């Protein structure tokens, strides 16, 4: 197990380097940040000077090497646009994103697994056909559309839920949370559902497929033949097995949600890091983008490793030798 984790970490570092390199490459070849950094009225020479100050005149590989050496020391440089250190800039926005992602994945997991089990027991019942149709609707709607339609319905026509922003927040230690105020929670509802909707459908379908498969297994027959109650058979013997791929998927999706929820954040004007990323991309703020993507890769990677560990706990057969 330990060797496995070390192996994954080493792989992760390589992935991280590759990812940062690709991002760096794209942005180096995409535009000259010095132009916008020098101000509207700067002359060609002044821009050249700016380039020198920021080392943008150096060859690409030197810039990259410098970026990486600094990054190892924890210094990811300053934002070209905001001129402040990049890492705190992103971290400051992270709690909003994490809270959104956590709520979304919570909704998706609880409802997805619950409905998935329900549907798997009697796949042909009318009610369950409706649930399945609903899940199909969910996976057939791009997130932005879900968001807009929810805003249209609840924010504009019914006007019962706030359609944008994060509401009132409270600082607990270093963490700015919206969970603890009523306004924070109501603001969370629409974006969390928007973000979680697609995942909900995916988890529902995965649970259903898993349950349907598991329910035909011999050990379920054994469990019935032991005289166990349906609750025990379904929730202990069947669900535990069906959950293995579901938990894996949930973990992977959670990573994705934290790292790449910018579409939802954009639509709901959520002050999270995804929104920051999007703004930075439009503003070509290269240090923010590269750092963000590296951070995202790191988050996804750590979650993947955690998922693998969880997988091993859930599935005693796996020992990663």
């Amino acid at each position, binding site marked *: 197990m330990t060797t496995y984790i070390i192996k994954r970490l080493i*792989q992760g570092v*390589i*992935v991280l380097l*590759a*990812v940062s390199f*690709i*991002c760096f490459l*794209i*942005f180096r*070849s*995409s*535009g000259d940040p010095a132009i916008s950094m020098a101000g509207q009225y700067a002359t060609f020479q002044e821009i050249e000077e700016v380039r020198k100050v920021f080392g943008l005149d150096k060859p690409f590989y030197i810039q990259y090497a410098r970026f990486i050496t600094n990054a190892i020391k924890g210094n990811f440089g300053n934002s070209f646009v905001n001129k402040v250190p990049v890492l705190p800039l992103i971290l400051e926005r992270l709690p909003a994103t994490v809270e959104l992602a956590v709520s979304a994945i919570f909704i998706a997991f609880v409802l997805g697994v619950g409905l998935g089990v329900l549907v798997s027991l009697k796949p042909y019942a009318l009610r369950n056909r409706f649930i399945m149709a609903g899940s*199909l*609707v969910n*996976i*057939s*709607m*791009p*997130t*932005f*559309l879900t968001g*807009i*339609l929810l*805003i*249209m319905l609840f924010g*504009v026509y019914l006007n019962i839920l706030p359609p944008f922003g994060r509401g009132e927040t409270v600082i607990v230690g270093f963490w700015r949370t919206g969970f603890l105020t009523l306004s924070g929670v109501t603001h969370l509802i629409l974006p969390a559902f928007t973000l979680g909707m697609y995942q909900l459908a995916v988890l529902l379908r995965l649970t259903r*497929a898993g349950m*349907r*498969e598991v329910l*035909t297994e011999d050990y379920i027959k054994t469990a019935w033949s032991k005289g166990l109650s349906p609750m025990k058979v379904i929730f202990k013997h069947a669900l535990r097995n069906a959950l293995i791929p579901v938990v894996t998927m949930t973990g992977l999706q959670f990573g*994705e949600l934290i*790292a*790449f929820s*910018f*579409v939802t954040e*954009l639509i709901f004007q959520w002050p999270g890091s995804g929104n920051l*990323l*999007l703004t930075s*991309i439009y503003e*070509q703020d290269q240090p923010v*983008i590269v750092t963000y*993507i590296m951070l*995202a*890769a790191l988050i*996804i*990677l750590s979650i993947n490793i955690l998922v693998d560990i969880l997988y091993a706990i859930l599935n005693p057969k796996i020992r990663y030798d």
Partner: protein
Amino acid sequence: MIEKFSKSKIIYHYLHDLSAIIGSLLLVLSILSAIFAPMLVPQNPYDLEKVSLEHFLTPPAWMEGGSAQFPLGTDDQGRCVLSTIIYGFRTSLIVGFGVVIVAGIFGVIIGLFAGYYGGILDAVSMRLADIFFSFSTTLIAILMLGLFKQRGVLIVIVAICIADWVKYARTMRGSVLEVKEEAYIIAAKATGANDLRILSKHLFPNAIPPIFVILAVDLAVAIMLEATLSFLGVGVPLTEPSLGMMIAIGKNYIYAGMWWLVLFPAAALFLLVIGINLFADWLREELNPRIER
């Protein structure tokens, strides 16, 4: 799985599965309307001379101020919404099929060789897959915009493919690893068949079915992605209408009460995608060896 692969059975199942029929009908209708768009539409939204600001923001025909010339109304540039939707299908389907064909072929080839030969080839291509997979497709597309500084259908296809081939490669690899162990592959080796023959005649045809399911699902995903990218303003150019862009434009008019700018393209996008998904669902069940219908 192969056991159940009887042709008559597939047709029978198909004809007895209402959702599969509805799904494929929706898909076929969209494809047909996309192909025959120039003959169908009241106004060609690509023809810059025909579109005129004169008719901007006309409501649907049945509403007050509506005109029979524009059954579903017009957008803020005076484009006929119905025509734009039909042309939008074109963009969606070109991107959708473009992605599944390009990413599919690339991914399948990589997966086939990685799975069959294993070793370094396998390790390298799968690590590569990890790297590309750790980006989200939307993000790649936005980054591509930075690289090319231009928008275009081709760039959208390339952008989506960059992360998308991974799905195919992984699925194909998994499928190949499974089929590789089948006795008929060993039997083919035992009769002295060379690698090329084994790959093409024995391995490929048997490892490919799971790809069909991915293909169908991915078509829907690619279409949704194109819409998302166009919605974000990094998809196809403004002059080549796409459903996502229509929604993006229309969203500014939600509060102004001009619902037709969002609702019609949204419904069109939704019907197209759900059609594909219905079909994909049916295909998945059909090709799934484990679940008896």
